[in-house]
């Protein structure tokens, strides 16, 4: 009971504090502190409710137990991370995004191909592509190659559609200027239209970044070697090791956020000239 009272008091206190902070906002520190405080509150409420209501650890383990498990099984988590993220997701991401950008540049000169491929690409981008995971596992085997293949297909269409839209984004005035300079097709592509397409391409790359890890993990449900994050989640369910599952989820969330952040950082570096990056 005392845990529940503590949770309630803590929650109300941080709520009031956050409301005050938000009103006095403007500083960078406040902008960081408010969400941080909210996150800490969530963790404390989770811990307190689990202890207060004596929730069984096979339904929801408290965050402290997850943290202990996390610290205790670092080598195993690292092995899973390398297998799923570095080998499966990252390899697939690089191949898929690279192929999509190259395809977009290749069909750039043909209006016919664009008219045909874009509706098909938009259609495929809305499909539940994770469903091809069992097929890819059948074709490429249990190891990381099949996971990378799923990721390639998942990230290809969002990046393709965005890149094609981006290549059309430069203004007629700018293209005319290139024409008055007697710029060749290749020159105007490299010097004007590809840079102008970068905000669009990065939009696609950011969407793909969130898809890549999901694709790699889900593909492991259909067969995998005895390591990898998807394998770990499935194996630990069998023995109700929920603390290990939550530790793996934490790794996935951290890796996903870091990857997304990295792509956003590169975007800021590449498209520093774009209005959305200048404030």
């Amino acid at each position: 009971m005392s845990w529940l009272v503590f949770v309630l008091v803590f929650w109300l206190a941080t709520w009031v504090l956050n409301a005050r902070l938000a009103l006095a906002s403007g500083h960078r520190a406040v902008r960081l502190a408010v969400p941080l405080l909210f996150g800490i509150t969530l963790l404390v409420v989770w811990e307190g409710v689990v202890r207060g209501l004596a929730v069984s650890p096979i339904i929801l383990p408290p965050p402290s137990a997850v943290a202990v498990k996390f610290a205790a099984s670092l080598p195993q988590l690292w092995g899973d991370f390398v297998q799923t993220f570095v080998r499966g997701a990252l390899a697939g991401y690089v191949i898929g995004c690279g192929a999509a950008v190259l395809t977009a540049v290749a069909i750039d000169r043909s209006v016919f191909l664009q008219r045909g491929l874009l509706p098909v690409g938009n259609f495929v981008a809305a499909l539940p592509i994770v469903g091809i995971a069992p097929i890819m596992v059948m074709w490429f085997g249990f190891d990381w190659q099949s996971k990378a293949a799923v990721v390639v297909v998942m990230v290809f269409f969002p990046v393709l559609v965005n890149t094609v839209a981006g290549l059309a984004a430069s203004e007629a005035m700018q293209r005319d200027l290139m024409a008055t300079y007697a710029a060749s097709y290749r020159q105007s592509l490299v010097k004007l239209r590809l840079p102008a397409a970068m905000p669009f391409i990065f939009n696609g790359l950011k969407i793909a970044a969130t898809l890549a890890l999901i694709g790699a993990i889900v593909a492991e449900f259909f067969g995998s070697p005895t390591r990898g994050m998807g394998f770990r989640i499935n194996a630990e369910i069998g023995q109700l090791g929920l603390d290990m599952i939550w530790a793996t989820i934490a790794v996935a969330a951290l890796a996903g956020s870091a990857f997304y952040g990295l792509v956003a950082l590169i975007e800021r570096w590449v498209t520093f000239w774009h209005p959305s990056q200048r404030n």
Partner: protein
Amino acid sequence: MKSALPVVSVVAVIIALWYAGSVWLNSPWVYDQAARAGQQVSLPDVLVATMQQDRPVLPAPHQVIKGLYDGITGQAITSKRSLVYHAWVTLSGTMFGFVIGTLMGIALAVGIVHNKAMDLSVMPWAIASQMIPIIAIAPMLAVVMNSLGAQPIVTKAIISAYLSFFPVVVGMVKGLRSPDQMQLDLLRTYNAGQGTTFWALRLPASVPYLFTSLKVGIAAALVGAIVGELNQAAGIGARLLSGSYYGQTVQIWAALFMAATMAAVLVMAIGRLEGVTLRRMGMAR
């Protein structure tokens, strides 16, 4: 209509490549069988044989269509072998979760727009929450919900709701903030309160944004429901997994096409609804 010809030709090329691929991927098995029987096979025989295997590596398009047709019409639609039955199971979970996710997303967006503390504290976590691959923890959710005695549809709905709520939050926050200063000032000169401003200006202005998010959301909800079914007894996801266990490639492809059709129909239905609503509101472009 001027894009009809390019689309048709691209689709035709894809189907041609598919046939070529199925010949290429299925022929080793044919040669293998022939070598075991000590026979020589001619090329036309191989071509025919690659098109009608029971468990091809890559089923030819007509085999998939036949599998789809058999799955839909081969038995009563209440039968557990009917694709219609499985599609219905998936659809019910999708819609359940989609409605919950949409309502939650709208509520959260209203809170974010009207309360600065919520804006600052919830928005970053809503973005971070999407970094948790919820699809990946679907099996765990299933076990936990099972031990709590929940129906299978609830598990699916939670995953679907989680996936569809985020696009709605982002779209609605943008939409509710889309009225410009001039319009807000006008309402202030009318002495309108926050409530009136919301119902008369913000909410109508957000409708186009809402529909755009709903289209993304429903496709995400369908993916969530399918993955949520991977360890359940019925649904498109269950068909995918059982097909992968027993090497029934035609079954996998048929289930996949069923899912694709559902996604297309759902997105198109929302597009229709969007068109009708916006025209009624005088916002159609």
